[in-house]
C-alpha cells in the first residue's frame, strides 16, 4: 500500500511509541500536520519553537523517554538551536523534526530555507537530511535508536516538503536493518572485567574515597545500585548539579552538591580525597575549579559510556567505558567477592568523621531577614520545599535562583530535578516544567525562576493554560540579573553594568492573569506559606507566584571562576571557622 511521506513520518513516530510531541506548524512541515489530525499522538502547540525544544527536554528528563519536537524550516529551525544545544550539553534524549524546502529548491536560497543540518551539526549527537520518502522510516528509527542509546543526546531529522508529499511503500525496518545501516555505531555498555576488578580493589584500599555522581547515573537509571555500593563501603557521596536526586540528600553519606556553589563539605571532601569514583560525571570546570589544583592527591576511577570523556580533563587511573548501571552492578559484585574472599576495607571511619565535621561546621546558611526587611529567596525556597507534596518535581532557570534551588531543596528521589546545567540556558524553566508536567501529570511541578529568565520564555504559560498543563511558577524576583550582579559586586568593584531589570515592570501578576494563570504577589515573610498553599491547591490552571525578594542577596559558598577549590568563599557567618576546612 502506498502512503505519503508525511503519513509515513507520523506512523513511524507512532511505531516509536511517541505519545506526545511539542511543535509549531509552518510552510514546509505543513504536510505532516495533516495526518497528525488522525494520529493518536498528542500535539502541544507552543508559542515559540524554543519552548517546544525545552518542553521536549523537560519531558525526557522526568520520563527517561525521548522528547519530540516538530517545527518548520528556516526561522523555526533556528529557534530550535538553543534547546538542541542544551540537550546536547546535558545528554538529553530528544528527536527534533524540522521541515525543509523541497529537494528541488535546496541550495537556491528559497523562502525559509536555511542549512539546518549545517547549523545544528555540532550541537546534535547526529542529524540527517532525508532526501526521499522511502528513507523516512529508517531515518526515524535510527534517530530514536541513536538518541536513546550510548550517551543520550538530541538527533535532528530534516525533511523537505516534497519528501513529505511524495508517496512511498511503507516498510518498517527491523532491528537488524537498523544495525546494518549504522556500521560505525556500537556503544560499549559493558565495562572491562579487569578494570572493574581493579576499581573494586582501589575502592577497598582507599582511605579517603568519595563517590562523585554525575548525570550519567540518572541517565542509566543506576541510582539504586550506586546506593548499594555507597552503603556497602560507607563511602561519602557528592551529587553534581546534573545528578541531584541520584542519591538522597537525607542519607547520612550524602555531602550534597560539589562545585562552584556546592557545599563546603562536598567541595572539600573532593579536594582532600585519595580516590574519586566518578560515575557518569565529566569533570566539568564548574566542579573542578582550577583543574591543576583539583583533588591533587586523588586517584581516579572514571566510569563513563562516552570514551571521549576518559582523560578529556583529568587522566583516570582506572578508566571504565560502559553504562553506569551495568558497570556499577559489576563493581558491586566484585566488591562482594573480594570481601567474601577475606579482603578487608581500609578503615575509613576517620575520613567519615572528618566529612561529617565539615558538614556540621559548614551547613548552608543565610541571614534570615530582619523584621520588616525584604524577603529572603532562600526562605521562599525552604517554604516551597516544606509545603511540597511528596514527589514534587522542581525545575529551575539559570542564575542565583537555580543555585539556591539546588542547594535548599531536599532531593530524595531521582528524576525530581530538571535544570539546564551544561549550557546554562536562561528561559529554560517555564517550558521545561511544562514538558515535565506533560510527562508526569500525576506529580506537582514547581518551576523556580528568576525575573530575568521568566521574561525570556514566559509566553509558554499561554500554552500551559490552553493545553491544561497546571504547573506552578515561583519567581524569585530580585529585579536584577542577580547572578551577574553578584559577580559585578564581588569581582568588578560593585560597578553594576546593565543588570538592573527596572523593578516594578512588568507586573507579573497581571501578566500571569493575562496568560490565563492565577497570579499571586508576595512581599512579606508571613505571606509566603499561605501563597504556596494556595498555589498547591489550584490544579485547574497554572499559577505564578511573584516573590519580591531581597535584591542584594548572594549565593554562598562560592568558588570564583578559575580559582582553586581550596579557596572556596564561605558565607560571611562562617568565615572565622575557615581553618576547620583543613
Amino acid at each position, binding site marked *: 500500500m502506498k502512503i505519503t511521506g508525511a503519513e509515513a513520518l507520523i506512523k513511524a513516530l507512532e511505531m516509536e511509541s511517541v505519545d506526545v510531541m511539542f511543535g509549531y506548524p509552518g510552510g514546509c512541515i505543513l504536510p505532516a500536520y495533516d495526518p497528525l489530525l488522525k494520529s493518536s499522538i498528542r500535539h502541544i502547540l507552543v508559542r515559540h519553537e524554543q519552548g517546544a525544544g525545552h518542553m521536549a527536554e523537560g519531558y525526557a528528563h522526568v520520563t527517561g523517554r525521548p522528547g519530540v519536537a516538530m517545527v518548520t524550516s528556516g526561522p523555526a529551525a533556528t529557534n530550535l538551536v538553543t534547546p538542541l544545544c542544551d540537550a546536547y550539553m546535558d545528554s538529553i534524549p530528544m528527536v527534533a523534526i524540522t521541515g525543509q524546502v523541497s529537494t528541488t529548491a535546496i541550495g537556491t536560497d528559497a523562502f525559509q530555507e536555511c542549512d539546518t543540518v549545517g547549523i545544528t551539526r555540532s550541537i546534535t*549527537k547526529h542529524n540527517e537530511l532525508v532526501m526521499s520518502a522511502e528513507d523516512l522510516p529508517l531515518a526515524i528509527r535510527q534517530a530514536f535508536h541513536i538518541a536513546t542509546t550510548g550517551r543520550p543526546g538530541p538527533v535532528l531529522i530534516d525533511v523537505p516538503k516534497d519528501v513529505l508529499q511524495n508517496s512511498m511503500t511503507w516498510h518498517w525496518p527491523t532491528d537488524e536493518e537498523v544495525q546494518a545501516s549504522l556500521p*560505525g*555505531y556500537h556503544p560499549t555498555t559493558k565495562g572491562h572485567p579487569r578494570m572493574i576488578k581493579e576499581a573494586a580493589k582501589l575502592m577497598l584500599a582507599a582511605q579517603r574515597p568519595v563517590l562523585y555522581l554525575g548525570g550519567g547515573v540518572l541517565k542509566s537509571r543506576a541510582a539504586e545500585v550506586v546506593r548499594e555500593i555507597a552503603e556497602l563501603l560507607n563511602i561519602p557521596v557528592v551529587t553534581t548539579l546534573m545528578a541531584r536526586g541520584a542519591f538522597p540528600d537525607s542519607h547520612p553519606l550524602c555531602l550534597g552538591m560539589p562545585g562552584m556553589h556546592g557545599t563546603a563539605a562536598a567541595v572539600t571532601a573532593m579536594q582532600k580525597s585519595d580516590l574519586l569514583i566518578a560515575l557518569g560525571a565529566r569533570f566539568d570546570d564548574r566542579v573542578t575549579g582550577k583543574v591543576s589544583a583539583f583533588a591533587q592527591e586523588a586517584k581516579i576511577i572514571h566510569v563513563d559510556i562516552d*570514551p*571521549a570523556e576518559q582523560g578529556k580533563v583529568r587522566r583516570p587511573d582506572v578508566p571504565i*567505558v560502559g553504562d553506569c548501571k551495568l558497570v556499577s552492578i559489576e563493581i558491586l559484585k566484585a566488591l562482594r567477592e573480594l570481601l567474601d574472599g577475606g579482603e578487608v576495607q581500609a578503615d575509613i571511619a576517620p575520613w567519615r568523621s572528618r566529612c561529617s565535621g565539615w558538614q556540621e561546621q559548614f551547613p548552608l546558611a543565610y541571614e534570615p531577614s530582619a523584621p520588616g526587611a525584604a524577603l529572603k529567596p532562600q526562605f521562599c525556597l525552604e517554604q516551597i520545599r516544606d509545603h511540597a507534596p511528596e514527589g514534587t518535581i522542581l525545575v529551575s532557570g539559570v542564575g542565583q535562583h537555580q543555585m539556591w534551588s539546588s542547594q535548599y531543596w531536599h532531593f530524595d528521589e531521582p528524576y525530581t530535578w530538571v535544570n539546564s546545567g551544561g549550557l546554562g540556558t536562561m528561559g529554560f524553566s517555564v517550558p521545561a516544567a511544562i514538558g515535565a508536567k506533560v510527562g508526569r501529570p500525576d506529580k506537582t511541578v514547581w518551576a523556580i525562576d528568576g525575573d530575568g529568565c521568566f521574561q525570556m520564555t514566559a509566553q509558554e504559560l499561554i500554552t500551559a493554560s490552553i493545553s491544561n498543563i497546571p504547573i506552578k511558577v515561583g519567581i524569585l524576583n530580585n529585579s536584577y540579573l542577580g547572578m551577574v550582579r553578584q559577580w559585578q559586586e564581588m569581582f568588578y568593584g560593585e560597578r553594576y553594568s546593565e543588570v538592573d531589570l527596572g523593578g516594578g515592570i512588568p507586573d507579573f501578576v497581571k501578566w500571569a492573569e493575562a496568560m490565563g494563570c492565577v497570579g499571586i504577589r508576595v512581599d512579606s515573610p508571613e505571606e509566603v506559606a499561605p501563597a504556596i498553599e494556595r498555589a498547591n491547591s489550584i490544579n485547574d490552571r497554572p499559577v505564578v507566584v511573584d516573590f519580591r525578594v531581597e535584591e542584594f542577596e548572594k549565593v554562598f559558598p562560592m568558588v570564583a571562576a578559575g580559582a582553586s577549590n581550596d579557596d572556596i568563599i564561605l558565607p560571611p557567618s562562617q568565615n572565622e571557622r575557615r581553618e576547620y576546612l583543613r
Partner: protein
Amino acid sequence: MSTYPTPQRHHILSVLVQNKAGVLARVASLFARRGYNIFSLAVAPTEDPQFSRITIVVDVEGTTLEQIVKQLFKLIEVVRISELDPQKSVERELFMATVRTDGENRGQIVELANIFEAKVLAVGVDALTLSLEGSPEKLDDFEELLRGYGIVELQRTGRIALPKLDREAHSRAVKGKAS
C-alpha cells in the same frame, strides 16, 4: 612552505567512513569546533562504494591525538580509525607546479625534473608546469629546489597512505568505538 610536522607530532589517521552526504563536513567541523588543526586531508571512495577513506595528517601531541580519535569515533558515520605509523606505512602525494623560466635556465629545470622523475606537463614561453608523484619528503625536496627558479603556482594533494605489506600489525586499529 613544506613545514611538515616533526616526527613526534606527525600522525596519519586513516578514517573509514560511510559514503554519505555531509560526512566530510562533519569531520572538518569537528576539527574546527574542538580547535584541532588539520595539516592535510584527502578523501576518496574505497574499493567498497559504501565507504570512503579520509586520510588526515594532524600535527598534535599524543594526548590531543587521543582526544581527536575519540571525538572522531563519536561521529555516527565513522566506521573505523587507524593510526598509521609513518615508519610502517607508504605515503604518496601528488604535486604540480608552474615555474618561471627565462629560456636560459629551462634546460636546468628539465634536468632537475628528470632527476626527480617528474613530468613536464606544459611548456610556455616563460614558464613550465611540472608534476611529481612520490613520498611527501621527496616532494618537499623538489619543491625546495624549484623555489630558486620562482614558483608561480603550486598545488599539492595532501598525502594518502596505506600500511606497508611486509610487516605484520602494520596498522594499529584504535580501540574504543564511541557512543
